[in-house]
């Protein structure tokens, strides 16, 4: 099986505070990998390291390496913009730009210099269809994205991410701000997307991890405690800490 990411001995510090400690793991292609753990365990940090969004924070020090498609993403000559076009991201809170639905999705391609209205139209439609949102919004593409419901906004953000034709989509607790019905829709969508994309998802919701992911990694205090097939983690974890967490004894 091919890997999308190979993470090796990754350490990350915010100033003096250690956030990730000696993480080593592989993230396989075209599968869903879930990162779970209590708040502050470093799972979001790990996710954001994968497309180098942590660059935006001051005082971050990273050592160890992450290879994406065999290339070291921390290498000096490595093009971070290129990385981010390949590795898309969906955030915890739906965050559409204050523009129309169309402009939101066309934003990424436009930044890459696509100006042809027809091409853009096609990209927007395809992305919306792939994000299972097209039928709901096809008549109001010119309206503000802010007027959509929370679940729709999140699917719009997913559509915006897949408009870039990424290989990987990182999802940072994408359903934590949504109601159960909207959550179910997003989960269906994620399972659908798995066919084309590698997905890494951070989630607080263990049922969600169990339902949708192929692999699950359990992090605690910046350390990777256990990483295995999802059914193994949830049915027969090797570590007691994992078991305690999964059975709800702490966290």
């Amino acid at each position, binding site marked *: 099986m091919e890997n999308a990411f190979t993470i090796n001995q990754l350490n990350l510090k915010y100033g003096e505070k250690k956030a990730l400690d000696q993480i080593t793991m592989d993230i396989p292609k075209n599968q869903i990998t879930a990162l779970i753990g209590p708040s502050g365990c470093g799972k979001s940090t790990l996710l954001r390291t994968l497309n180098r969004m942590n660059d935006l924070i001051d005082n971050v020090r990273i050592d160890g390496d992450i290879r994406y498609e065999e290339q070291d993403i921390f290498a000096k000559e490595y093009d971070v*913009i290129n990385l981010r*076009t390949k590795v898309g991201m969906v*955030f915890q809170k739906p965050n559409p*730009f*204050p523009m129309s639905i169309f402009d939101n999705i066309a934003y990424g391609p*436009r930044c890459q210099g696509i100006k042809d209205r027809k091409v853009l139209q096609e990209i927007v439609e395809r992305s919306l269809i792939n994000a299972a949102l097209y039928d709901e919004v096809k008549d109001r593409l010119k309206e503000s994205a802010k007027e959509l419901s929370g679940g729709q906004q999140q699917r719009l953000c997913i559509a915006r991410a897949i408009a870039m034709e990424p290989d990987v989509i990182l999802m940072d607790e994408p359903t934590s701000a949504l109601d159960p019905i909207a959550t179910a829709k997003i989960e269906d969508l994620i399972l659908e997307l798995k066919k084309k994309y590698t997905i890494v998802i951070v989630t607080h919701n263990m049922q969600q991890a169990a339902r949708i992911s192929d692999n699950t990694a359990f992090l605690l205090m910046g350390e990777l405690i256990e990483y295995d097939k999802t059914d193994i983690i949830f049915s027969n974890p090797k570590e007691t800490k994992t078991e305690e967490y999964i059975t709800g004894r702490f966290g």
Partner: protein
Amino acid sequence: MKSRKRFITDKIYQSLITLISLIGLVILIAVFVFVFNKGSSLLSWDLLTGDYYSTVYDGYYDSELTTNLFVAPDDLDSDTYFSTRWGIALKDDLDREGHDYILIVYVDTESPLANLPDKNNEGEMVYMASGQSLDKIIFSDNTIMLSSKGAEAAISQFESATGIKDIMFTTAGKGIRGSLITTMYLIILTLIVALPIGILTAIYLHEFAPKNNKLVNILRRMVEMLTGVPSIIFGLLGAAVFIPIVSTVTGTEGGNLISGSLTLAVIILPVIISSTEETLKTIPDEYRQASLALGATKSQTTFKVILKSSAPGILSAVLLSIGRIIGESAALIYAIGTSIKDEIIVTERSTSLAVHIWSVMSGETPNFELASAISIIILLVVFVMNLSVKMIVKKISY
């Protein structure tokens, strides 16, 4: 017992504070009452659109006067005098700067004065009409009518006159159109200069500048220092730097619209920078992250997402700046000068509404009416600008 005393002192203090805080309201209303009281009678469309300098008309009348007697219109006031021979009604009045003059109240359409041959351009005509001012007449017997002798004397001279060698009358003048246009030019030119510089500076300081960098901190401090500089000092800057620069480039002399706008641009720069930066602060980081995660570069993120979202803040900066520009006087007295003009050329002298007030107030007899009329305009603009900014700020909620 003690608690009762405390209760009373409490009440006294409370009413004292309430009373004192009314002072602000009282002053605001007093300013309004005063300005409207003095100026509203003068405020009219004519004032806004009229020339400051009067046009002088110079005519004569050497034909036979018909013996027909004109009939005075019914609606003349008691202090208006009518000439039945010439069909004209006159009245003593004060002009917009408070000087005596003879106002032409009515000219009969059949009156010979309504249609006079132009004294200086053969074949052309000059037309006397109501609203003009009558200055001087030399009748055919070389008697002279002077406006300083008043309307009643003028009419009695008219009644005995048979012809006119020279009659001079003028349009009302003292209008503020020129200063109004100058002010608009100033607003536009100033914003054209200051907006890009201010917005870009704010963007650099908030989005791009490395944090905790000494040089950046110094730059920031220098920009902030501009806020504490009094406007008259900016005027000196205009006089010492901008006027010479513009003069060298355009070959003109003295203050002009460009030097004025450049000076104003420096004055409003801190307003624009701080207002833009304030909005940039309110824009959630999620926008920046979402855009970067989509592979946009930092400049794409800034100009396509951030700048768009900060439009309301920039709009309030623009509105506040307009208020500031229209009310600025001390700096402009130096940077553009006090000469009132009708024809506005950007490289020449002219003056803004606020400085127009300064001009009419610093003469030998201050003219409260005109000053108040202009003040009404300025106050209205400033207040509308400030209140809209308040509304915009209320509306921004991310």
